């Protein structure tokens, strides 16, 4: 018993990015290099800022998804939830704008957050209390949210009131010291997310539930509560993304957020989170979201790919990115 003190070599891993987690960052670096070779404009400050800003939506939602997935769940409803929250928020703001003026914007943000929490709670409850496979449960709510927004907009579009547009614009287009606001917001969300996942009791339990539900339950963790809360966190993240999204497009349509769920899950998995649960990587997720947006950007910037084949090339690149990520792990 004497020599326990002589602990095995411990790598410095205080802020949870170890070498084994470098995969997504390596993939990102490879992509940036290729991008530069294909078109040097790729690395222009302007382009990089655009792409990273854009990836903010997916990144923010994907940070929430990191919680859901590492707790052993899955949420397919995030895209329609984003559309739904955007719709509710715009309708609300347009409704109160005549009486309260631009104060409608913070009020609208609050409404968005509440709606996000409610949507997350709904998903979480169906999954945990109803004990329904998350894939199916959230496929169901995906239809529900999408239908609600279609219903609320009468099948059409709701645009944000003209009087609010300019006041709201800076939330997407503004910057602080040259850094676009969406980037700041997503960094903030990632910081908070990383803190919660790696440094709080809840984060620990979230991963434990995903790693082995029985062990967690036997250890006195309320699996129901932890999982539900993960879905609520997801809802909050979607709401934050929606809040940033409104000024960019200025409207909610029934096609807003279509197929975002696939991008979100891809970002999370490329980032190194295990789809089976038990392992979450917030910064990897952020890298994953940026990777996806870079791939799309490269498709626009490069001229060799026939328009019809863009999806194929994207598919191939995603698979290669996963291979790089995998390889660096062993």
């Amino acid at each position, binding site marked *: 018993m004497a020599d326990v003190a002589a602990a095995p070599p411990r790598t410095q891993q205080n802020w949870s990015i170890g070498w084994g987690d470098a995969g997504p960052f390596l993939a990102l670096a490879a992509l940036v290099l290729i991008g530069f070779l294909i078109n040097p404009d790729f690395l222009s400050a302007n382009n990089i800022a655009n792409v990273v800003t854009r990836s903010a939506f997916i990144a923010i939602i994907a940070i929430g998804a990191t919680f859901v997935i590492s707790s052993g769940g899955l949420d397919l409803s995030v895209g329609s939830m984003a559309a739904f929250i955007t719709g509710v928020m715009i309708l609300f703001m347009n409704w109160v704008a005549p009486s309260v003026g631009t104060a409608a914007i913070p009020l609208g943000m609050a409404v968005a957050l509440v709606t996000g929490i409610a949507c997350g709670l709904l998903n979480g409850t169906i999954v945990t209390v109803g004990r329904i496979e998350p894939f199916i449960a959230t496929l169901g709510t995906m239809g529900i949210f999408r239908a609600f927004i279609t219903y609320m907009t009468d099948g059409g579009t709701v645009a944000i009131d003209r009087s609010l547009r300019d006041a709201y614009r800076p939330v997407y287009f503004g910057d602080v010291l040259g850094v676009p606001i969406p980037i700041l917001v997503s960094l903030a969300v990632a910081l908070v997310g990383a803190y919660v996942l790696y440094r709080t009791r809840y984060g620990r339990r979230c991963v434990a539930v995903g790693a082995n539900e029985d062990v967690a339950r036997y250890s006195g963790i309320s699996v129901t509560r932890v999982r539900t809360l993960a879905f609520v966190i997801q809802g909050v993240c979607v709401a934050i993304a929606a809040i940033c999204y409104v000024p960019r497009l200025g409207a909610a349509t029934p*096609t807003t957020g279509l197929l975002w769920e696939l991008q979100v899950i891809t970002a999370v998995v490329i980032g190194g989170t295990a789809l089976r649960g038990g392992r979450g990587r917030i910064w990897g997720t952020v890298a994953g979201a940026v990777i996806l947006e870079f791939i799309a950007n490269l498709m*626009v910037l490069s001229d060799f790919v026939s328009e019809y084949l863009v999806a194929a090339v994207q598919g191939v690149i995603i698979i290669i990115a996963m291979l790089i990520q995998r390889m660096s792990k062993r």
Partner: protein
Amino acid sequence: AEKKTIAVSIPAADHGWTAGVVYHANAAAKEINKAFPELEVIVKTSPSASAQVSAIEDMSATRKMDALVILPHSSEELTTPVKAIKDKGTFITVVDRGLNDPKIQDLYVAGDNVAVGYNTAQFLVEKMGGKGNLVVLRGIPTVIDDERIKGFKDGIAGTDLKILDIQYANWNSDQAFKLMQDYLAKYPQIDAVWANDDDMLLGVLEAIKQSGRKEIKFALGGNGMKEIIEKVMAGDAMTPVETPYPPSMIKTAIYLTAAHFAGHAPVRGSLKLDAPLITKANAAEYHFPDAPF
């Protein structure tokens, strides 16, 4: 002289009509790049509104764009980004769906969605003596879809033509096939069907054929798909007319934009393509045998 760049941003080919747009845009680009060495046309497709915003941002961030020809996924979402590009001095041509702020565009080329619905409705009113039961298939909840439905409803207003049912079939022939089967199961008497897009009409026709029902007098679509035009040319009884909404409008727009640079006089203004009824008499004008649509 320096080469002028014309960027073309259009939706990805996700159903028949948009596929036609992509075809015609690519064709125009090829022809113009060959005919005018001083012009370069590049075509980019995007699968969604936000992807389209991204695409035009990317293009303007990384290359000098002299003109942008854009068929927006949706009006609201693209207005602000296109304005940002306009502010850099780019010539803007808008196709099909207008932006919320018409001041942005230098040139506007569009079909008339309301007329597509209205003219079809008028035809039915006339042929059916203002009486009968209709079922309608609509596409994806968007402005285009709304306008066509609105035009149609206006067209039958005040007559005894009754819409029994109206449901979304997402501009998808499969879903239209199923929906039509269900309509047929639900309603014993259907006098005419309108699908607001030809992709859906294909599914509708199959379902009617399979059911063997005889009471349906008309099954009409819209958009000017090759197959449907051919039916009209052949004098089909059930689909004797068609309304054009030709995807080739993108080609027109690209050529007009090219003319602005290559020609001698500046081109500006707005060009609204009509949606007259295509009948057996004039069908040949609307038939492009080589186009995929």
